């Protein structure tokens, strides 16, 4: 049979607990007699024992042997109901023959000892006069409860019994009781909290990579703008300058045609020659100059008169592509015996 030994309690109560111990002791005494004898008594008496067991513990058909109402009765210090139950069960145990009844008895004993322990601890606590209510009252005073005498607290104090707690009430209490605790102070990194390794470096590298590209992009447009402007300005200026040269040259001798090659070729620099061709093409595009072939089938250039500009734009335009290489450039110089350039090279200012 399963015997539940009573766990030692702190109490010095003797009434119910010693009864329980005696009952447990009594069990072992009775046990030796009924170890494994087959049931020889008639079925009706076994059934009777079973029914009485159930009645004694007021058991419902399921396991709960001590429903709550009876529990409070058992636990109340004024009654000896627990003792009575145990004594009744003790008596009944003599008639137990079947395993089922013995199991029930064991169950009863388990529950009874738990109850006994609780009852014992209850007795102990009631021996000390510690009243949690009074304690709570003292704490409230300490925390700075404002007790209002006249009850003119207003609508916000409808829920409070009397008075209201200041906002730092609990802080005040915590500060006072800090000394009771030997808590280790929390350790925090000054620069921030601690994360596991993987996320941090990735973020850092991403941000680093993003930053330079953004800056580079930001720099780029301004640079480009500047370049384009200067480029455009330079081109326009150049074109105007060349137009000036052309007009001057033409005015010197309006009748004789200006050879194109003599006009653009710079005997000192091939690059200048190419630039001159480039700028001259703008003049022709804008209709400020025109090219034509003379009797020798050599290209000539002449400025367009002011009045003829509109007429020229309406007439059919022809396109051609001019290519030049250093070899051709040299040949041109030799053939036409160009000594100086008509178009003076520009001063190096914003280059």
């Amino acid at each position, binding site marked *: 049979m399963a015997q539940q030994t009573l766990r030692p309690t702190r109490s010095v109560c003797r009434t119910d607990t010693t009864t329980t111990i005696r009952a447990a002791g009594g069990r072992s005494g009775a046990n030796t007699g009924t170890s494994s004898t087959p049931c020889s008594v008639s079925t009706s008496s076994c059934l009777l024992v079973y029914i009485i067991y159930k009645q004694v513990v007021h058991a419902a058909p399921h396991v709960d042997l001590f429903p709550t109402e009876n529990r409070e009765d058992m636990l109340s210090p004024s009654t000896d109901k627990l003792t009575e139950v145990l004594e009744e069960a003790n008596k009944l145990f003599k008639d137990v023959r079947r395993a089922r009844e013995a199991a029930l008895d064991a169950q009863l004993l388990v529950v009874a000892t738990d109850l006994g322990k609780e009852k014992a601890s209850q007795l102990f606590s009631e021996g*000390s006069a510690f009243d949690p209510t009074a304690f709570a009252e003292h704490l409230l005073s300490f925390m700075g409860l404002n007790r209002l005498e006249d009850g003119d607290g207003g609508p916000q104090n409808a829920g409070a019994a009397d008075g209201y707690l200041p906002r730092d009430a609990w802080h005040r209490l915590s500060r006072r*009781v800090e000394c009771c605790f030997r808590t280790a102070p929390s*350790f925090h990194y000054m620069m921030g909290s601690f994360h596991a390794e993987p996320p941090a470096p990735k973020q850092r590298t991403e941000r680093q990579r993003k930053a330079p590209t953004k800056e580079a992009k930001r720099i780029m447009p301004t640079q480009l703008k500047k370049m384009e402007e200067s480029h455009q300005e330079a081109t326009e200026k150049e074109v105007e300058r060349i137009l000036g040269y052309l007009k001057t040259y033409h005015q010197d001798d309006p009748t004789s045609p200006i050879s194109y090659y003599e006009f653009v070729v710079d005997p000192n620099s091939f690059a200048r020659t190419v630039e001159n061709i480039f700028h001259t093409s703008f003049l022709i595009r804008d209709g400020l100059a025109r090219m034509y072939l003379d009797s020798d089938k050599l290209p000539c250039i002449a400025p367009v008169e002011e009045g003829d500009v509109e007429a020229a734009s309406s007439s059919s335009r022809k396109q051609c592509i001019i290519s030049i290489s250093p070899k051709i450039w040299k040949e041109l110089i030799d053939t036409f015996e160009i000594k100086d350039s008509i178009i003076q090279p520009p001063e190096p200012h914003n280059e």
Partner: protein
Amino acid sequence: MTQRKRSFGSQSFSQNRRQPSSSGTQEDNEDSTFTQPSTSQVQRGLEKLTPAQVDQKTSEVIQYFLVKDQKKVPVRRADLVKHVVKDYRNIYPEIIKRAARTFEQVFGLKLVEIDPKNHTYILINNLEAADKPSPVECPANPKLGLLFVILGVTFMKGGVVRENVIWNTLKKLRVDSGEKHEEFGDVKRLVTEEFVRQRYLEYVRIPHTEPMEHEFRWGQRADMEVSKAKILEFMGQLHEQEPQIGRCWL
């Protein structure tokens, strides 16, 4: 054992730590992979490593503890071995010993094994708490006050108290477990889960009760950290404030 005399007896924390590894299985599932190495194994392990490596590993363990202690949740040995110690597990006792010494000498903290069965550690303050509140105005955690109330009542009731007693006491202090408190939020969760996880309280079910009821006890951390004498002292002061309610309760 060997010629070199090394004191592996760890006096700073509980005695039953040094168990030579004979059987393999431990209590927890994760812990079952880790067996406490024997003294000779530790010595052999130490010989293979440079002092700098051992110091480095000890520092990592210390940092792990310090950061985990922010939440006041105990550190399990299994986690420590899995995340920090890793390959150095064969010299685990030596690492712990050095870490405990560093905590004492450098930080003024004590590394305590509160659960010898499950091998969990906490850090507590090794220095004696000042008699009066510190003159520095540092903000106190209000949860400490709440915890104090519960521990105080539990202590005065003999170390075990039914949860109803606590809830009623708190209700008198305008802390209702059913409602959201403006300072503490969900009080029930704070008390029954957070404080229990931090091992300040134990919240155990009372058997054979329908509906289910629980009782509160002091937790393992509270046993180490909280001074019962100081609690009594404060209670005495409280009662002195209102001498007309003369209850003799010691």
